């Protein structure tokens, strides 16, 4: 039986999740690292709005019933593989309604 220990880091971050339906595709097909995803705005009533590519998405802030922990495997040496919990996620922004396309108006 293999055993791995999981323990929190001294400093436990509080992270968040932005949940989008489907897959994100990079515009220039150059992978995701370093690329802008989109702009996150909040309406005055606290509703999150994202502008991604040519779409506007309206979402909700949701407190997670079951929070997530974010863990990373660390290997001290051959034997001591363990996982460090870097952060806990208790809230997410979920965008599940149909994105509205942005139609660019050409100035006349």
């Amino acid at each position, binding site marked *: *039986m*293999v*055993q*791995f*220990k*999981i*323990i*929190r880091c001294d400093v*436990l971050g509080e*992270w*968040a*999740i*932005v*949940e*989008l*339906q*489907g*897959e*994100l595709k990079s515009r220039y097909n150059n992978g*995701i*690292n*370093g*690329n*802008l*995803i*989109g*702009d*996150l*705005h*909040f*309406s*005055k*009533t*606290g509703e*999150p*709005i994202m*502008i991604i590519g040519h779409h*506007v998405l309206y979402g909700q*802030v949701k407190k997670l019933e*079951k*929070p*997530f*922990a*974010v*863990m*990373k*495997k660390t290997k001290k040496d051959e034997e001591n593989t363990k*996982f460090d*919990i*870097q*952060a*806990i*996620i208790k*809230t*997410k*922004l979920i965008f599940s309604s149909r994105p509205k396309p*942005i*139609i*660019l*108006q050409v100035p006349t």
Partner: protein
Amino acid sequence: MDPMDDVKSRLTAAKLPVDSILRPSQLIRFDTENNDELILIQLDKTTLDAVEAGQELIIRGMENDTSVLCTADETYDLKETKTSNSLILLNDSQLDKDNLSTYPAGADRVEAVGRNAVCLKSSYLELKRIVPDTSRLRELVSQSPYKGPTSEEDYSDAKLYSLLDLLDMIPASHQEIVTSLKELGACFIDGYWRTLDFEYVVECMCIILRVVDSESWSCDDLNFVDLVQKVNDSGELVPFNIVDHLIAVYGTREGDRCSFIMTKLSRFFAEMLLQSADSFDFNEFIEVWGSTMPSGMSADEENLAGLALIDKTAKPPTIKRFSAKELPQDTEKRFHILFNAREKWTMKEISPYLEDLCLQGQKISSILTRYARSSLTGGEKVYSSRKTS
């Protein structure tokens, strides 16, 4: 071009006036580094509390490729769950409108900050609390049942197991293993956990009870130190730790005061008698059981729950040994054995044989609904096998 102009123009294109949103806006960009090796694990309240308190969780991976996660006292099944959604992890963000401010009316310039998206995930580990599989535990601690100090030479080559050994082999939490050891009646002898051979238990119990009787002591009010002394003075040795163990199994102890618990003692006698033959005439059994026990104890059928099968439909009624402790942990297999032993069971009859399969808060009725078929017989609800053959 000022990047803020980009944000502004995107806002304008989306027909969102600057003063209709809060500030600052947050521009989300993926980290330049690849952080794909991060793993998301979904927690429940217990595991979250444990993590936040700095307690260690342990993942135990078995040969059959399944894994469990253990806190100090609970075990969870671990499963990778995929989602068709994209989960973007932000390590720094502001999601609370109360921490954002408004723009003055007619504002024209956007304020924005950059936010880091650490990585994107489309799967996570899901936890489900389970009753751990401790069946191997029973096997291991019963490999070399203790028969007393004089029989130990028989075991000179035997493999014995310490708690640490067991923790390495059983996919369960520390506390659940300790609790199971107690339920198995295993004894801690010289650093190892072992069951006691039942004949040896009978021998020791008889010695102890004989002493209690000859000293005219009361089973429910004993002095532990005196007891151990008298038991060993009589020439028949029952080691201190064995007396201690037997008092813990069949009674209770606080400091020097200890006592036997009548129901447990009564069950011990029943168990002892049931070992001696395959089946008995029920009424004869009740008589013999009553007369074997110290005076003041009665032969109460209620105390046989989980120990024996009583068939009152037979002529004459019979009773035979059927121990809950010897049944398999696998639910399907257990029900197979139960329905083979008896076709129809009432809730009262079957409960002692299913109790250990329930998680705290789970009801036996939910297991029955899933694995058995219910019907009415003579006005009473009974459970039988779902299988027709």
